[in-house]
Each structure stands twice: as structure tokens, then as C-alpha cells.
């Protein structure tokens, strides 16, 4: 098999696999970053992923491939990420602690680096209780903070948790997630700090429908100086119909405030899609104004044309056409963070 990442820029000076991360570069340059979320298929073909990737290529910096999201079994995130690489889109491999113990976590992390995946997003993962295999054994041998810490150890200290040396070390850009609307809200900025201390260099958030919550959270993040040490990408997405409203409201961690729900309910069916685009584009514009927010992560849930439409509507445009956000910050640069590789 040919290495799907072989044509990608690679810095060989560290002997290990240090793939170029465009997402890292975008955040370091202070440009507004856009990432998309792609759910891998319940099937054994990469064609769907490649089709979406080709459709979105000029609009996004990178795309996430989810890892058994909602505890539903689908194609693995590393395989989906290879599909993205083959289609010319940079992957962010989501990687959860739910299904693997620390041996498998480290093994898959090394494998991801070897095949050319430049960004890994370390999560705890959804509990199997509400997935399609509620009879499965939840593993949770480590939590997300410990997984971030492990990824950083493999990369920077070049050894396994056991202490055994690596023959070559990986070079990812390490990401984490946060949910500013989850309780206890007062602890959410400090939890961001824990993840940064463990190794996180960028964050993607859960869906934001309530901008004031993010404003308050970012105020705490800035007070702690944490915005200087990471890129923060806010999650957004459309509420396309009343059914979507019900579905999203029922997801743990997703908070839809009453005024937003009212607005969606008051729309006649034929205007719902247009208003979903308007609402999301307004959210993006408001998030863009918040100091320290460095981009948006768009979760379009299978609506392929949504991302180009909402980015055009919000005035963000294609990847090459974007304005810079306020100021690039130290933590976002490849060598600025105290926890970074070099």
C-alpha cells in the first residue's frame, strides 16, 4: 500500500513522523479557522467520506472524523481519516477512551501518526448506555486528560507510559474538547487549563446555541490567560427542522436556549432551512467577535451544502479568502506553547 500522506510536507529532522498541520498553521497565523465534522459510514466503503471531502475541500482547514460518536459503531476514525487524506482534506482524528485500554490507545495513536494523520482530538467518549450496543463493556481505562497527557508524552518525551522508548516519535497537533454549557459552568475554564497542562494545543467545543454562555466562559478563559496558550474553535450547526430541534435537544451536552427553540418553532416549514442558515451565520458572526475565539467547527449532520452556504452568508468565505482574527497568540504558534514539541 502506498502511504496516503506521502505527498504531504514532512519534516524529517526529528526522525519521527511530523506531518504538516494546516490547522496548526492557520491558528498560528491568526487566521479564522474552519473545521467540519464528518461522520464515518456504517459500512465498509470510503466513497461517501471522499465525496463529502471533495465537496468541502476549498472551504475548510480540516475535517474531524468522529470515533464511534454517540456510542454507535461505525467505521473507525483512523480509517476515515485516511479516506480524507486520499481526497486531499486534512483530517482531525477524533479518538476516544471508551473502547480501548491504554495499550490499544497508544498503539492506535502511533499508527495514526505513521499513516500521516497530523491532528488528533482526544476525548473521553460517550457512554455505551445510549448507543447501539448498550450491552458493550465500557472501557474508560483512562480519561481525556490522561489521554492528552499520553499523546504529549509519546510526542515530546518519546516513550510509552511503560517507559519503553519509541524508535521514532509522532508529531501531532493535539486537540481536546470542551463544553462551556455543561455543569459546573464555573469549572469549565479551569478544565480547559487542565487539558492545556496535559498537552492540548487546540480546542473544539460542543454545539453553541447560547452565545452569552460562551462569552462568559471566554472571559474566564482570558482571565486565566489560557487563550494565549491554545486555539479555541467553537462548535456550530444548523437546526434544520422541528425534528432536528427535538433530536439536538435530547443529546447530552447540547443546550438550546428557549429563545432559539421558539424561533425555530415559529418558522413555517418552507422557511426552516433558510432560517437555519441565517441563525447559524448570526451565531458565527457573534462568535467571531469574541476575543480568543479562533474559528468555528461546523457540525452539519449530513447537510452537505450547509457549510458553503453558511460560510458565504456569514461573510467568512473560502479558505484562501479569510480575514485574520485579532492577533495571533503565542500558544497557537508551533513553538510558542510551553508544552509544545520543539
Amino acid at each position, binding site marked *: 500500500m502506498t502511504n496516503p500522506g506521502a505527498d504531504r510536507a514532512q519534516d524529517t529532522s526529528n526522525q519521527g513522523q511530523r506531518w504538516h498541520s494546516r490547522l496548526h498553521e492557520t491558528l498560528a497565523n491568526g487566521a479564522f479557522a474552519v473545521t467540519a465534522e464528518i461522520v464515518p459510514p456504517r459500512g465498509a466503503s470510503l466513497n461517501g467520506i471522499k465525496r463529502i471531502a471533495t465537496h468541502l475541500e476549498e472551504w475548510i482547514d480540516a475535517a474531524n472524523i468522529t470515533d464511534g460518536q454517540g456510542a454507535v459503531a461505525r467505521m473507525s476514525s483512523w480509517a476515515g481519516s485516511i479516506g480524507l487524506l486520499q481526497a486531499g482534506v486534512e483530517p482531525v482524528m477524533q479518538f476516544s477512551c471508551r473502547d480501548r485500554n491504554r495499550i490499544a490507545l497508544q498503539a492506535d495513536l502511533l499508527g495514526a501518526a505513521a499513516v500521516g494523520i497530523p491532528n488528533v482530538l482526544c476525548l473521553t467518549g460517550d457512554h455505551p448506555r445510549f448507543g447501539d450496543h448498550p450491552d458493550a*463493556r465500557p472501557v474508560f481505562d483512562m480519561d481525556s486528560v490522561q489521554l492528552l497527557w499520553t499523546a504529549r*508524552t509519546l510526542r515530546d518525551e518519546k516513550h510509552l507510559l511503560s517507559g519503553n522508548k519509541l524508535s521514532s516519535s509522532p508529531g501531532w497537533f493535539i486537540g481536546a474538547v470542551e463544553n462551556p454549557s455543561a455543569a*459546573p459552568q464555573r*469549572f469549565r475554564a479551569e478544565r480547559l487549563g*487542565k487539558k492545556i497542562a496535559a498537552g492540548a494545543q487546540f480546542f473544539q467545543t460542543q454545539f453553541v446555541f447560547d452565545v452569552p454562555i460562551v462569552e462568559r466562559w471566554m472571559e474566564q478563559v482570558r482571565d486565566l490567560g489560557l487563550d494565549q496558550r491554545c486555539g479555541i474553535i467553537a462548535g456550530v450547526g444548523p437546526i434544520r427542522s422541528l425534528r432536528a430541534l427535538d433530536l439536538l435537544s435530547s443529546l447530552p451536552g447540547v*443546550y438550546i436556549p428557549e429563545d432559539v427553540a421558539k424561533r425555530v418553532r415559529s418558522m413555517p416549514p418552507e422557511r426552516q432551512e433558510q432560517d437555519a442558515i441565517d441563525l447559524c451565520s448570526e451565531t458565527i458572526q457573534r462568535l467571531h467577535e469574541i476575543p480568543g475565539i479562533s474559528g468555528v467547527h461546523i457540525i452539519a449532520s449530513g447537510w452537505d451544502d450547509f457549510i458553503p452556504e453558511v460560510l458565504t452568508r456569514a461573510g467568512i468565505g473560502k479558505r484562501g479568502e479569510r480575514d485574520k482574527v485579532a492577533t495571533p497568540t503565542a500558544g497557537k504558534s508551533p513553538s510558542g506553547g510551553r508544552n509544545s514539541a520543539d
Partner: protein
Amino acid sequence: MYEHGVSKQVSPQPVKPRASARAMFRTHRLVEPNFVWRAFARFAEATPPIYKVFTWLEEKMKRQLFGCSMCAQCALPTTAYACPQTCPKQLRNGPCGGVFPDGSCEVYPEMRCVWVIAYERAEETGHVEDLRRLVRPIDHRKWGQSSWINYWRGRDEGLWTGDDALDTPASL
């Protein structure tokens, strides 16, 4: 024991501690390692029947108070005495992102997230700083041992970082 059809061992349920954090912080001073406790720990480890009885008593007490499942690497002093092993995902470093805005657990919505409980207790007693420490993964060989004896024998020292590790990155 088998509510929801899932063994608590595999998927624990949040437990609200039955003792106040303030009382527990005070009690902790009595069990801090000193000459007597260290000597007792060595003696108990050398005398299996004593170790067994002591561990049995510890389990009874801590199960009743905190829902302890005997991981033997007790995190209670850093979590305002709410046991993180009762989190269904057994998270040692704080709440997951699925906690509902009202503080209920994402996995068992009828229960309160144990980390929300921990945070409130830490806030009440001025111990929020403790929650910022990075907690290392547990050693699964130790299940069923006495965490008090492990503590007195100095085996708990690497369980978490001394501070938030933001200024000086800590090794895992």
C-alpha cells in the same frame, strides 16, 4: 447492585457522599502518615489476617460513606471527598462534557453528576485548587487492596501533580 441491568463494577453510578467535606478534611488530619500509622501499615502487610480484617473494615466504612469500590488509590482528598470512581466513566480529572446544565449525570440523568457534587463541596470548603491537579491513570493491579495502607506506605505519592502543572509541565 444490578440496577439498569449493568453491574456497578463495570458501570458505576454517582454516589452522593454521606459525610460533609468539612468533617472529612478534619478527619483526614488524624490519618495523615506518621510514625504510628507507618509502623502499623508495615505490620499489617506482614500479617495477612490483620491486613484482611483492616481492609474489610475500610471497605465497609468507605462504601457506606462514599460508595467506595476499593480501587486502592484513593482520590478523595483531592475531590472534596466525592469519589470519582463512582462516575459511570470513572473519570479522575473532572466532569465530562455531557453533564446537563442542571448538574445531572449524562449516563444516569436521574442522578447528580459526582463531579458537580465534588466541585460544590470543594468550593464550599475552599479546595477548588485541588481539582486543578492532573491525576494520573490508576494501577488496575491494586483493586481490592487497602488504600489507607498504600497511603501510609507512601505509594500514593505519584497519583497526581503537586499543582496545576501549567507552569512546569509534569511527566506522566
